[in-house]
């Protein structure tokens, strides 16, 4: 196979980009590299990881059962702090869920071809994160059997949800987001599922994959419809990236609590969501690319690009933190000034400075190219970012509430073991789903990665005149 990709030759070396797919992989190599993990016998290591994830998932279920049996008194909520871990975890998980759609929709519309290597797993991660997020509003209502009241369903009480409440907008925003993400992810999967179907040797596997690939044959007409649908879905999903977390921020911003009542919240929440989402994608893919041997498809260059986005959004979030302080001072509202002074120097100063260092200070190290391309460094930093983003929500929720307007009711919020275990358990659900995804679904968008190979360019084999040129296609697979 050729080493000359044919696209960058002749341009200035500084403008040359690294190839999107390394290792001179052929079309068939890519199919093999991705498909084989769903076809071979399940490795023992997978079962090990799955068992750990299942134990965590069981923890979550036990905590939820205990909560249902006893009521929300098992949580650490107290009188001024009526919103604790449940909302913190909800916003945390929804935020993580933002990277997937950004990668799949916005980067698609902007023709960022590097998205192809990571979009499938990022979208899957999005779905699982939103599932984790959806648990918390569901269980935090004191009477779970009435949780369906969140939805506008006709009922004998002739009662409707409060359409003026941002909490209801949340229900719509997040459920629409989940539905659109799921459809988008599934539509993208269809050609790859058909690839797996055609490779399947067992009858049952062929039938199951045949069902989910919806009769895809790869005909020209199928591709035309598919690409049109994909483009339309991308256009539909793009506003959601911005709207969902804006609506989540309204939960706080629409209220009049000092520290919450801020117009900067929607953009700052969206930036934070993308920040944490990308960090989670980096955390997961750094491991997955190594374990599954797809380092040639998800290259250092891909990770570096994500790290640049982390640097960008982290700085935006940090800028928002500082702006909040400025506005608190500039507004001249003493309650606002107090709320922010209390954040940075009050009883929760430890949480505030954890947030500041993880979200604003540490990501600045990504200005250094060597660190941006260092696997161990980015792995640690991506985890720190998510710790920081969790603390951001904790700081916003708890510090504003624990010093409310009435000093006699001031209190200190401490989570209970159930609070902590429920949160830890939600990672069990997340990893259980993600492991199932890695095992049964092609974790990279095979057809899309092939489309960004230089060989996919119709003029690749010739010189623009339709002639077969110096680089004939490879016919023999180079990977078993």
């Amino acid at each position, binding site marked *: 196979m050729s080493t000359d990709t044919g696209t960058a030759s002749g341009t200035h070396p500084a403008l040359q980009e690294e190839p999107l797919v390394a290792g001179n992989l052929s079309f068939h190599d890519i199919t093999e590299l991705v498909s084989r993990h769903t076809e071979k016998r399940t490795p023992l290591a997978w079962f090990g990881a799955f068992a750990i994830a299942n134990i965590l998932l069981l923890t979550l279920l036990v905590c939820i059962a205990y909560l249902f049996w006893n009521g929300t008194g098992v949580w650490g909520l107290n009188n001024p702090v009526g919103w604790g871990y449940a909302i913190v975890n909800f916003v945390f998980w929804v935020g993580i869920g933002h990277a997937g759609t950004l990668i799949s929709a916005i980067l698609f519309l902007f023709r960022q071809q590097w998205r192809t290597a990571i979009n499938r797993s990022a979208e899957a991660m999005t779905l699982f994160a939103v599932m984790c997020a959806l648990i918390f509003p569901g269980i935090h209502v004191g009477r779970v059997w009435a949780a369906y009241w969140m939805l506008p*369903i*006709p*009922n*004998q*009480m*002739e*009662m409707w949800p409060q359409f003026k409440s941002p909490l209801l907008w949340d229900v719509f925003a997040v459920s629409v987001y989940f539905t659109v993400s799921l459809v988008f992810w599934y539509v993208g999967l269809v050609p790859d599922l058909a690839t797996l*179907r*055609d490779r399947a040797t067992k009858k049952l596997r*062929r*039938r199951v994959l*045949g*069902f989910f690939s*919806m*009769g895809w044959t790869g005909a020209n007409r199928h591709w035309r419809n598919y690409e049109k649908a994909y483009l339309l879905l991308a256009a539909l999903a793009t506003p959601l990236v911005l709207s969902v977390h804006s609506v989540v921020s309204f939960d706080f911003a629409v209220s009049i609590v000092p520290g919450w009542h801020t117009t900067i919240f929607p953009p700052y929440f969206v930036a934070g969501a993308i920040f944490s989402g990308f960090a989670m994608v980096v955390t997961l893919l750094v491991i997955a690319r190594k374990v599954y041997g797809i380092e040639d498809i998800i290259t250092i260059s891909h990770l570096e690009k994500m790290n640049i986005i982390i640097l960008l959004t982290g700085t935006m979030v940090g800028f928002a933190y500082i702006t909040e302080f400025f506005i608190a001072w500039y507004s001249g509202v003493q309650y606002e000034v107090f709320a922010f002074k209390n954040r940075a120097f009050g009883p929760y100063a430890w949480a505030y400075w954890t947030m500041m260092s993880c979200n604003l200070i540490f990501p600045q190290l990504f200005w250094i190219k060597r660190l941006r391309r260092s696997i161990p460094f980015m792995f640690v930093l991506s985890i720190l970012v998510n710790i920081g983003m969790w603390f951001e929500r904790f700081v916003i929720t708890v510090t504003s509430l624990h010093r409310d307007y009435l000093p006699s009711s001031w209190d200190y919020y401490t989570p209970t073991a159930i609070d902590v275990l429920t949160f830890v358990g939600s990672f069990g659900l997340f990893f259980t789903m993600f492991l199932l995804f890695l095992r049964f679904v092609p974790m990279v968008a095979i057809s899309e990665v092939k489309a960004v190979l230089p060989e996919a360019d119709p003029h690749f084999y010739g010189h623009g005149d339709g002639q077969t040129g110096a680089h004939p296609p490879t016919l023999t697979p180079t990977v078993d």
Partner: protein
Amino acid sequence: MPQIFPKKANIVPTISLLGLVGGGIATVFLIWYYFSPEYTDVGYAPEQPVPYSHAFHVGELGLQCQYCHNNVEIADHANIPATQTCMNCHGQIKTDSQKLIPVRESWASDEPIEWINVHMLPDYARFSHSVHVTNGVGCETCHGRVDQMEVVSQVEPLSMGWCIECHRQPELYLRPPDEVTTMGYVQPADFVSRNLERIANERIQPPTNCSACHY
């Protein structure tokens, strides 16, 4: 490659989609009806310790409702009469009736008769008989034709939606306060405009906020 599914499988996606949408809608409607008091509570007619017939006492003899339920105009709760009230008459008539044995026993032992509550509201819903009765909500509107009941049964759902329907449009249900206890009352032709006038003059404003009943 041979086809994986036969041609008739083409119908499956259509049917599943229709089933999903139709099933979803059907579930909502089924729960709407079958989980509501209109289905679960209407027609509840427990057997009482004394086979007291409202049809006979009210329908034939013409007893006033307030003769027995004497607190209904001044209290939230429409009381069940004390044994004393029964004995006002039955101390002298039908003194040897088999059916009245529990009443006489109660009278002798000073232990109240354990009547069974027919119209039950949940603990978290407050209802005041006095407010409704004094403003012109007929007994019949909620309890039905008690004057025709051998055994008292629940005829209205007493669900929240049912309450709210009247609270939103009281002009469709109110009657003049002196007709409250009338059974089989027929509204005059212009009752809506008359009621609207009353509502305006007397400032009858049935609340529809949550804490009106749930507090």
